[in-house]
């Protein structure tokens, strides 16, 4: 075996090993302090998008399905149960909870790519509405016990 192959293999193993160890460091992230600026994008939703009703408004399973989708795709940045993470604001703030379902759907679809939020139109429309249904079910962040998530079927 040639020396440069050995060096390459050892370097690769060290890198992957280091990353694996780092992956195990799963300290919960402290929620970010949110400024009003984090939510200004919500005000940019066009009227047509804002008034769109959620087709899953009365579907009791939608919030549960939305919770699984949220955990898979959104919790990495927005924190468990949307309490906010280091990279993205809380989704239990008044600005989000008071926004219409259509506004949240629009933001999820378009993303805010210049500020780091990816476009989520890769998820089918129905799944995006299910996530919105889950978000609206969370309600404002309870002050007394911020770690306890609200029930997804609360609303």
């Amino acid at each position: 075996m040639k020396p440069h192959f050995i060096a390459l293999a050892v370097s690769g193993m060290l890198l992957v090993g280091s990353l694996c160890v780092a992956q195990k460091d799963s300290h919960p992230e402290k929620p970010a302090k949110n400024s009003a600026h984090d939510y200004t994008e919500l005000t940019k939703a066009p009227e047509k998008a804002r008034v769109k009703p959620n087709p899953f408004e009365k579907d009791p399973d939608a919030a549960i399905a939305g919770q699984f989708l949220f955990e898979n795709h959104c919790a990495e940045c927005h924190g468990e149960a949307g309490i906010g993470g280091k990279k993205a604001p809380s989704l239990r703030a008044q600005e989000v909870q008071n926004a219409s379902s259509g506004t949240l759907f629009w933001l999820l679809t378009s993303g805010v790519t210049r500020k780091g939020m990816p476009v989520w139109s890769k998820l089918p429309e129905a799944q995006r509405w299910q996530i919105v249904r889950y978000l609206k079910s969370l309600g404002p962040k309870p002050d007394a016990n911020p770690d306890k998530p609200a029930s997804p079927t609360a609303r």
Partner: protein
Amino acid sequence: MLRPTRFLASSLFLTVCFALFPPAPRAQEKPYIVTYDQFLEEPRSLEVEYFSTFGTQRDGNQFHSYWLELEYGATAWWTTEFYLDAQTTFHDSTVYTGFRWENRFRPLRREHFINPVLYVEYERVNGADKLLKEVEGHDVESNFAVPNAAARQEIKNELELKLILGSNFKGWNVSENFLSVKNLAGEPWEFGYALGASRPLALKGAPKRCNFCPQNFVAGVEMYGGLGDTASFGLRETSHYLAPVVAWNMPSGWTLRASPTFGLNDNSRRFMIRWGVAKEFSGFGDLVKKLFGGRS
């Protein structure tokens, strides 16, 4: 020369490592192997992918080509990827065939009916490259009949530009790619295309965590081929392929893709079987920062 056992040992090591330390789950990939859709990698996420193509060859030896792909979401509007390519030609040899570095940019801020993505790639590959990651110009089956020892003597430095257009409509994703490739040694621009359409088997998410829910499976079809070059633009002496595609996005973050591929004219290989496995590492960029003492 790259021995298959060495490649397999590295792949096995990576697989065991990934399985032992599962990161946060996140995957919703389209099933295409050649066609690009309009979606970029999530910011600071790394996707490690392995793709493999087994191809038949008339008047020559069958081959197995493979690439390792590292795809990183630099920002929400810029994804960068690095590829290492190799191939085994049966009754001949296994050779490393080159590397590629590609970048994709999403120029528009909002979602539209048609969403453009700009693609720029530099590749340094040798003549034994049998990846078929794209088909361009006058690529035909007989090009692959040259023995590896002779073919790898030719080194190509190429610039590839693509316009990627993607739309979503009633659960369907429709993507169109138009590509042009320039060998920097002064050869003419070559052109090609790739088209794809796909849809998840179910559009609604299931109210339970499951591996086999229909929403996790995406099926579709893609078609790709060459369009000649600046000297002779058109379909003459070009090859074209049609391929059903399927992807399985597992909640654990793994994605499996498979695609039986059929040649559509006499210049095309008759049949290829293509498959790939991908694993996404969310927050990879933050991990690297952490490793070097930075704050994520």
